[in-house]
């Protein structure tokens, strides 16, 4: 259980399945003190901070998208690059302690396609450069002349996608100017997003190619600190309302749940909301990959008049990767309507 908690704390999507990999990503063998820690008040610098921070233990470039086909059929897409360091440094060739993991998925109402890639740093197989921006692992890439204009590609054995992303709004810094607290004890990460991408491109599915358009949300986060020992998992929501407003909220489950939320107005104005301002209650569960996972949620953010029901587009959006979790598109109804993405970890009983 301890190992599991540590892994959970270190990286949201990396849990214990392929034990070796998970241990590696968790960096259990490395003294935490050697890594840099997020600092409140550190001013994020762009484009430099779009790149990798090898002195931090964990980091990710996490893109999710809600899309529709020509006939209005909804689709979801995920493209994630994780970095995990065994030591707080970059090294040449195979000596590099930086490890990379890529996850890609496409979700339809009745199918969920997943692929995974693992790579060593130092040899050119995977990495991130800030300007021009390029994040890649094997043949998957998120790259473009700048952070606002990107082409996103990935392929698995059964699916592929190739889409363009155009930023329609500013970057959003979560928490205190990008310093996002993760527990009452003060653990934190650097966390910013680009939630305003307009997306267009093509999905390749077993049934054939589909032209899609939609909106995408990119999360950037890096940290080194474990969360509190009693935190066992989390539920993370990114919602885009039809009004143009957006909202990010998460619950870290533990002896005492810890919540955090960010309200993003249609014009890009950001307000961070403290612990307790946001609540999420499971309304219905589904049997997924042999476990019960909440796939309908009641979300409330009274400060903004939000009282919505969030329902999974496909309840079986299980990421059967070496570190499994649930990640998929959702539909929002209630006080606000819209779409979004839901990520849940820690449901592996």
């Amino acid at each position, binding site marked *: 259980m301890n190992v599991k908690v540590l892994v959970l704390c270190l990286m949201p999507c990396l849990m214990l399945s392929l034990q070796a990999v998970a241990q590696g990503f968790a960096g259990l063998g490395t003294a935490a003190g050697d890594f840099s820690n997020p600092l409140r008040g550190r001013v994020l610098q762009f484009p430099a901070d779009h790149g990798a921070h090898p002195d931090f233990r964990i980091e990710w470039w996490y893109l999710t998208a809600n899309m529709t086909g020509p006939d209005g059929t909804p689709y979801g897409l995920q493209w994630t690059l994780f970095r995990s360091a065994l030591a707080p440094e970059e090294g040449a060739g195979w000596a590099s302690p930086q490890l990379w993991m890529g996850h890609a998925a496409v979700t339809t109402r009745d199918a969920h396609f997943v692929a995974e890639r693992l790579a060593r740093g130092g040899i050119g197989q995977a990495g991130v450069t800030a300007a021009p921006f390029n994040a890649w692992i094997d043949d998957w890439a998120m790259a473009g002349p700048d952070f606002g204009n990107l082409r996103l590609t990935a*392929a698995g054995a059964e699916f592929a996608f190739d889409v363009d992303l155009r930023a329609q709004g500013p970057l959003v810094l979560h928490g205190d100017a990008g310093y996002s607290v993760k527990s009452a004890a003060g653990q934190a990460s650097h966390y910013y997003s680009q939630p305003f991408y307009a997306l267009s491109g093509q999905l390749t599915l077993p049934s054939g190619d589909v032209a899609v358009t939609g909106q995408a949300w990119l999360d950037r986060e890096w940290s080194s600190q474990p969360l509190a020992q009693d935190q066992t998992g989390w539920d993370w929501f990114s919602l885009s309302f039809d009004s143009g407003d957006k909202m990010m909220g998460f619950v870290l489950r533990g002896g005492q749940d810890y919540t955090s939320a960010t309200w993003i107005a249609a014009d890009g104005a950001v307000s961070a909301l403290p612990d307790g301002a946001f609540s999420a209650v499971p309304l219905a569960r589904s049997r997924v990959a042999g476990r019960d996972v909440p796939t309908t949620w009641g979300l409330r953010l009274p400060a903004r008049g939000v009282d919505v029901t969030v329902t999974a587009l496909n309840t079986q959006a299980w990421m059967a990767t070496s570190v499994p979790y649930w990640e998929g598109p959702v539909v929002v109804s209630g006080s606000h309507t819209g779409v979004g993405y839901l990520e849940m970890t820690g449901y592996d009983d």
Partner: protein
Amino acid sequence: MRRAVLSALLAHWRHNLLQLFTLLAGLALGTALWSGVQAINAEARASYDAAAATLDEGRLAQITGREGAVISQATYVALRRAGWAVSPVIEGDLGGVRLVGIEPLTAPRGVGPVSAVGDLTGFLGGVRQIFARADTLARLPAMAVRAVVSPSIAPNTAITDIGVAQGLLGRAGQIDRLLVAPVQPLNRAPLAQIAPDLVLVAPQTGSDVARLTDSFHLNLTAFGLLSFAVGLFIVHGAIGLAFEQRRAMVRTLRALGAPLRSVIWVMVGELVVLALLGGAVGVALGYGVAAALLPDVAATLRGLYGADVSGQLALRPVWWLSGMAIAVLGTGVAGAGALWSLARMPLLAAAQPQAGLVARGARGLAVTAAVLLALSGGLAVWGQGLIAGFAMLGALLIGGALAFPPMLAVVLGIGAARARGPVAQWFWADTRQQLPGLSLALMALLLAMAANVGVSTMVSSFRLTFTGFLDQRLASELYVSAVDAGQAAQIVGMADARVAAVLPVLEVERVVAGVAGGVPAQIYGARDHATYRDNWQFLQAVPQVWDVLARGGGVLVNEQLYRRAGLELGAMVGVAPGVSLPVLGIYGDYGNPVGQVILTETVFVAQFPDVVALRFGLRMDAGDVAGVRASLRDLGVAGGAMIDQAAIKAVSLAVFDRTFVVTTALNILTLAVAGFAILMSLLTLAAMRLPQLAPVWALGLTRRRLAALDLARTVMLAAGVAVLALPLGLALAWALLAVVNVEAFGWRLPMYLFPLDYLRLGGLALIAAGLAALWPAWRLARVPPAQLLGVFRHER
């Protein structure tokens, strides 16, 4: 009640300690041979499995450089970035240990080292780790890595991260081959576009090493099975006797009110305890046998097939459990008949004398034997598949053994009819009288001898065939491999002036069309040269085969392709699009699992103009080899790229000598077991025969004379066994070589006969039997006259 039954039954063993010893020793020896051979096989197989898991050479497709050229790390990254799910491997020699460098993150799931390695942080972080067995680690030179003992890794192999391996081998940035994951993503660019110098090698069905060494293990397994059969005969004899002698006791017990069920269960329990005791001792002995032989077996396999087998024996639960199980099972089989007849024995029936019982059984034996032999013959003619081959083997052996007592009875009958003089007549009659008591031991001897004849013939045939094959295949004095075409040209330029002939080895792998939709095969181009004409022998060939081949009038195929594709002489083989040539000859290609086709050089070059010869056979006087080697070394040819024919042959012969050590040791052991069976039978008979010997003694034959006659009788019976064992053993060898081997490996070993070996074996059998008879004879010579007289006093 049960307690009384138990103590009564156990009293029998207390009074017949020798019989108890026979039973336990027979069980122990049979189990020992069986489990010893099994242990050797299990150990060797575990080693291959570890090797296969280390590399997974068979299961996965691989990408390699042409002609084994090195792959650059940049090419690997380019392939990954083009979507190819491949994982790099580097291999090299580090202080005699095979060092394998892997990349755990990209290695396909299930590839051994990743799971063997376990802790990725330890593997990749901080001081890097190197994994190997303890004995392998001990041989590695000192270096700045952390050694981790891992018994699941193949012998003489060490595994570490590819970066560490590149450093230790001094080959930074180099990769030897890429493992191709079974599942690949969509939209991959074609290999030819990204890395035109690399070739994709399809996965093989089963590793080469495993297929080759299977042949050796088959031999050992057959040996183990036969040994156990020998042991079983001993156990059967001992149990049968013990039950026979206790019939009276059982009758008494039952008359006193002991329920039959209790008696039977107590006896079953007694048998189980005995089986477990004997089995435990046997497994321990088997461990000793295996430990003593394993280094030789390991050396044999390494030399013969390049298969690395650890010389150390691990105590595997599977084989000691199987040893115990086989002991219990064997006892069960041996005791079932005795228990059955005991259960059906009428309460008031007299304890029958043995002779009657056996006489009743003799006809049954003859019938059973005839049925089994007929079955074996039928399987030999009509049987298909490996199972049928083994069934045929089993039926042949057991049928042969069971046929022995009836046949001997006939021979003895003839002997008795022709005997002149009272002593001779008594001798024959007495021998016939003893036959039932001795027949089980004699059958055991027969089986042991037949097994020895069969296995020796097979091993020796293998040796002759293989060395002949080496002579044929390695006719050139020196073989040299070039790294690239440039070096090849240099070698040819240098050698042309120095040696009698330069024979290029032109090779390409293609699917050979025309037969059953196509079969993958190696196609070779052979220069028209006396080397081939003088040395090659064919299983079948058209007349003037070399002349027709040189004219481009056909192809030669190896036996594997011939059998697999069902070819005949004259059948057309499509070697290239639009080019089909008839089969001119079929040659033996022992130990090679892959089909082969040989074209003449001109045809080969015309069809495959891009193939450049990188290997050459150089013909020269044996005395020139050292000089040419030195010149080649000056050209930059590595020592490992030159193979000296004489050295190969020396190694091969050394290997066969090791094989013979193993075979001889097993031969002697089985004979010893059989000899022991005879000894025990004779000792048991000795006590019962006293009433029959006493009158003869009283009529004037001295005890010495009686003892000498007994000794002569045993040796005579052993000689009879030897005479019958020879054809049985040869039939066994034939079955192994011509039926089982073909079914298992697709090639037939020619059978050679070794009369001197058989004579020596026969001599050994006579000595074993003579030694076994010596002590009983000596005891007979010393039996106190009072005891003989006592027979008359107690006469009923």
